[in-house]
């Protein structure tokens, strides 16, 4: 795990390459996190890949409600030879939740970005096939957002549809 100093050095290198890319660093529970600007995500991951972080293990979304900017995307990088992990995160506002897709560089992000789009409504620009993945394609709303209520989900059965019935509210 990069220690606090190593993390700062890494962030400094990223800043040298693109001054606007790094927003914040955090060393928490023996693990480094670098917050980057959404515009710079693809370049940042490419730069870190050349430094040895060659595997993208996980991409997941977070809703920081009620803080702004609300939506977050986390990228868990892994360096298999130095046995090192690093989290890269970015945050986008709810009214413009657009992030550049990293799927062209990291094919593993394909399903995971689709899940974030499905659950949080983050739009990944340049994703080859951005559709809902776990929820039905005609589903409305983004269920993992914090202001999306639990339960009370109307269920649609084909048998009711055939009989022209409406569904209990």
């Amino acid at each position, binding site marked *: 795990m990069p220690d606090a100093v190593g993390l700062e050095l890494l962030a400094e290198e990223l800043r040298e390459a693109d001054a606007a890319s790094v927003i914040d660093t955090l060393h*928490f*529970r023996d*693990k480094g*996190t670098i917050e980057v600007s959404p515009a710079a995500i693809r370049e940042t991951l490419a730069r870190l890949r050349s430094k040895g972080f*060659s*595997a*993208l*293990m*996980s991409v*997941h*979304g*977070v*809703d920081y409600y009620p803080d702004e900017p609300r939506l977050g995307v*986390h990228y*868990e990088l892994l360096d*298999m030879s130095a*046995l090192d*992990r690093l*989290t890269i995160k970015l945050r986008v506002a709810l009214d413009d939740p657009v992030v550049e897709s990293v799927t062209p560089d*990291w*094919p*593993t*992000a*394909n*399903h*995971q970005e689709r*899940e974030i789009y499905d*659950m949080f409504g983050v739009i990944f620009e340049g994703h*080859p096939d951005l*559709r*809902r*993945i*776990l*929820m*039905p*394609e*005609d589903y*409305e*709303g983004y*269920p*993992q957002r*914090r202001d*999306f209520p*639990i339960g009370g989900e*109307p269920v*649609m059965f084909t048998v009711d*549809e055939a009989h*022209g*019935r*409406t*569904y209990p*509210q």
Partner: protein
Amino acid sequence: MSTEITTADETSEYRKLEESITMEPLERVRSEGDQELLTLNMGPHHPATHGVLRLLITLDGEIVRDLKPIIGYVHTGIEKTAEDKSYWKAIPVIERMDYLAYYFNAYAFCGATEALLEVEIPPRAQYLRVIHMELNRIMSHLVWLGTSALDLGAMSMFWYCFRDRELILDLFEQSSGQRMHTRYIQVGGVAEDIPVGWAEKVREFTTQMPSRADQYKAILANNEIVLQRLRGVCPLGEKELLELGVTGPLLRAAGNPWDLRKAMPYSSYDHFDFKIPVGTEGDNWDRFAVRVAEIYESVKIIDQALDGLPEGPWISEDRKVALPPRHELATSMEALIHHFKLVTEGFRVPPGEVYFPVESPRGELGCFVRSDGSSKPARVHMRDPSFVNLQATAPMTEGAYIADLIATLAMLDPVLGGIDR
């Protein structure tokens, strides 16, 4: 939310949308020769898909040209449900994600919570967790072996493997009261110490399991049909697998010895002497051989953990996190207060974000937990290995026969409960 779908127009619109998922022409479609391409729907209730997986396959005669997995049929919103429960109440729902690896689900979540809380785990609890997780790994591999052999037409293997799986489930029942979804691993340790005589029962199992695995190898590994169905079929190289984020036995079959138990040990795995089986070709045969070899290694770990099982508490003595022992409730006011507080509200977790990866039977199972300082997690996400590994199906099977697709899917070992969560 508008939910009425009564009028004819709206109904047909819904159907059109549904068809757009399924019948849209697939990319990368090309036919060699003048064969007409056939789009075939497989699933979601096909027995060979190991759960409710639906595949949309483009066929050129018998050759698979493209494949799209369609998932979400058993999506139950566990991640969302967990946000509405206090940490200790979230464990049972999270266990139910990957229903063949419940100890791993529980451990990944508890490990992430413990990292946030900075709780020290007693050595005995760490060893008990290892014993149960390795038993779980053998159990998961046995289910995989049985159902995979069934896909290849070997009916009897299914019964043999499920017979041995029952032995493990009996052990789980004895130590925790449940055969599946045991809720044995708790934040801070494990729920109960192992009962008297349990260790001997585990020994009985571990002495018998290697010879059983020998028998299974003898049945399958010298069988010409199995060899023809697996050897050299649907290989995928290490580089492609890493790009697709594939981990676990699938990656090790391609020759990369990446295993979190060795690379970044957790829960005292560094105390044990075991080997990481790796393959050379990355074909279906290697995937098969690596998993069977892992059964022997897991047995070795269990034996060593039983030998060196430390004495002492099996759950943290931090009363702010773990329940006080029952007998203290009658005598100690403080214990009663802690008990009341833990059962009603649950413990509060310091704010922060943690990603905690463990090596599940299918690869890296990572649990991301974000705490906002309250007694309920603000976000729980499982990086489920099946979900990520499933993306490798298309590159593996492109250009292969449809029969080999079934074998490859079996060797991929996806668990749809984990994929859909």
